[in-house]
């Protein structure tokens, strides 16, 4: 085990946080890979390991089944399947990591979409013996649909193909060909053996031909600071703070999480949908004023003029505004058994704004395996992805999803059951 896995206290101030999603099935060795990362970073505790060893023995497994570490629910343990997104945590001295561990099967597309929505990076696993399969392509597509900025294709089980460079190159080549159809800004392909730890924490001596980083080294060093949109100022007003006290009698603060750009005292800003302009009088947190605030900080903004601003409004720059649109074109991933059909009415939640939406048109359904567009469909079923046109009761202050994942994403809610039934990525608002 090398330096990345030591348990020295992580220095607080130089440590950042990265979220990554893993996609693949148990057969690809996903649980083994996660188990390996947790184990090598000493994030598996003795009592957890003992419990897994005990269960493995009771079930008559021939070896300690690390997959059991990641099965949270009784049904999952009993049936040996993964049902839902599970979140796991580990840290090295450089970074804290949050893993969204998503089940790989097609019927869980919605879970992968959920896990990918907040991910900085995604790891798609393939079995070196099988090469790319339909599922690998689907996973890569979802990663690009959700615009996860970094993708790692981990070619696993290299030990079972004699550490062959040729096999690895063929898979890399095949994937690169497929990836040209997708929008993947940063792709890294790494040959690994999760079972034996090759290229996980340190470089493998079994594959001297591979000159890239180990997986953990890559995870620790990939640059994520510039993935956030720091150009377009977007501040959805979440909550208005008006203390009923003498000390703060005239205080009116607009609290929220910055969705894009950098905010500073003195900046000229526009409030939407009203269109009034003013200047920022102060950007602050409970710890005091901040000289500059940027996404995704949670701050409170005071404005120079007294305007009527409430939850759901958006603070931006006068010459760089989101669309204020009631007609929305979006890719939607449908997440419930009852199909989406044209004419349907739903509740929509976008940033801090809620409205109602009607499905005006279902333009096509996308085959998530072949990327084929089927424009003859009349509905979207559970786990389907398709392009729809919505009409909303109030304008959404929105950007294209490719420009901003926060101001470009929304969820759809069934008004009778209150369930979240769809996730949308805005293609155009106008």
């Amino acid at each position, binding site marked *: 085990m090398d330096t990345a896995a030591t348990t020295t206290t992580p220095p607080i101030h130089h440590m*950042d946080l990265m979220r990554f999603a893993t996609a693949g099935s148990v057969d690809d060795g996903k649980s083994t890979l996660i188990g390996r990362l947790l184990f090598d970073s000493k994030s598996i505790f003795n009592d957890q390991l003992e419990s897994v060893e005990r269960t493995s023995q009771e079930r008559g497994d021939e070896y300690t089944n690390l997959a059991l570490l990641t099965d949270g629910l009784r049904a999952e343990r009993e049936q040996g399947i993964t049902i839902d997104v599970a979140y796991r945590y580990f840290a090295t001295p450089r970074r804290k990591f949050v893993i969204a561990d998503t089940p790989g099967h097609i019927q869980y597309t919605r879970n992968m979409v959920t896990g990918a929505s907040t991910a900085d990076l995604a790891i798609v696993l393939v079995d070196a013996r099988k090469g790319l399969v339909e599922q690998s392509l689907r996973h890569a597509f979802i990663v690009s649909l959700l615009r996860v900025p970094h993708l790692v294709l981990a070619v696993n089980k290299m030990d079972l193909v004699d550490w062959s460079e040729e096999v690895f190159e063929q898979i890399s080549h095949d994937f690169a060909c497929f990836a040209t159809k997708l929008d993947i800004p940063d792709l890294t392909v790494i040959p690994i053996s999760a079972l034996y730890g090759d290229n996980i924490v340190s470089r493998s001596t079994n594959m001297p031909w591979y000159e890239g980083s180990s997986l953990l080294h890559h995870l620790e060093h990939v640059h994520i600071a510039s993935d956030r949109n720091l150009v377009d100022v977007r501040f959805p007003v979440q*909550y208005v703070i008006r203390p009923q006290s003498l000390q703060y009698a005239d205080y009116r603060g607009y609290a929220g999480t910055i969705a894009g750009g950098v905010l500073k005292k003195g900046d000229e800003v526009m409030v939407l949908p009203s269109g009034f302009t003013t200047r920022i009088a102060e950007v602050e947190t409970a710890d005091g004023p901040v000289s500059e605030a940027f996404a995704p900080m949670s701050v409170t903004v005071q404005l120079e003029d007294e305007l009527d601003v409430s939850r759901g409004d958006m603070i931006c720059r006068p010459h760089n505004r989101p669309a204020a649109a009631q007609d929305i074109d979006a890719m939607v991933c449908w997440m419930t058994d009852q199909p989406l059909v044209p004419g349907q009415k739903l509740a929509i939640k976008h940033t801090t704004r809620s409205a109602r939406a009607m499905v005006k048109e279902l333009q096509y359904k996308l085959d998530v395996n072949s990327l084929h567009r089927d424009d003859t469909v009349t509905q979207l079923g559970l786990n389907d992805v398709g392009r729809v046109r919505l009409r909303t009761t109030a304008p959404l202050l929105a950007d294209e999803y490719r420009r901003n994942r926060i101001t470009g994403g929304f969820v759809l809610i069934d008004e009778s059951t209150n369930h979240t039934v769809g996730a949308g990525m805005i293609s155009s608002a106008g």
Partner: protein
Amino acid sequence: MTLHEYQLSQLDLLEAESVHVFREVAAELERPALLFSGGKDSIVMLRLAEKAFWPAPIPFPVLHVDTGHNFPEVLEFRDRRVAELGVNLVVASVQDAIDRGVVREEPSGSRNRIQTPVLLEAVEKNRFSALFGGARRDEEKARAKERVFSFRDEFGQWDPKNQRPELWNIYNGRIHLGESIRVFPLSNWTELDVWQYIGRENIDVPSIYYAREREVFSRDGMLFGVNEFCRPRDGEPTFIEKVRYRTVGDATLTAAVQSDADTIEKIVEEIAATRITERGATRGDDRVSEAAMEDRKREGYF
């Protein structure tokens, strides 16, 4: 905070996300309350709530489910903190529920299981539509799969197979009358994050978290401090040991751990190096079965 790179540290990011969750609930749900146990997680949660609404006071009450089996330091701490913040304290008493015949004391003497109906009664009586809880996903396997907004039906039950997908930072808190949402602002925090944050923010915690010499006895391989509720049985000799508590629960079954950590810095070091989970080390109640927590959550526990 390294402003020039526009990159937040892990603690700043976690804080920002938790603050977002508090504001979202206050904006969208009518009668939230914050569940406060006096433990480190609920103490951090209270601090984050304070930050989320500053300079206004926290706009909801604090609910304490009082098992009657409290560490005295924790009760003192609760009352002091509540007074400082000027928030309303609602106490749901397990002893009172036993006296009224609503629940019955279990033979083991543990009140962990029977606090669930007491909690649910308080939710109903006060018509709380949302309860903030300090649970973290790193604590336990069932919790690793729970949402930040965890929907509960009119019986307070959690259905792990029927959870609402949570995307980006959008949370769905829509409920029908009688239903409620449990909200976990610390979902993505680890035990180490919590202690680092307590250190960074200089947050006061009850003295039982700090190591000092205490009178203890050994039971089931764990060390229990001698107190009003926890007495050695015959054949359980007591001795003096330098210990501290890693969790604060029912005083009858919360064990202490051997430790030299008598400052926050030393606690952070200890947690970074420990090889045993906090629940495995200190909670008799979670050892009952592999699915102990899942079962209790389904019944309406946090």
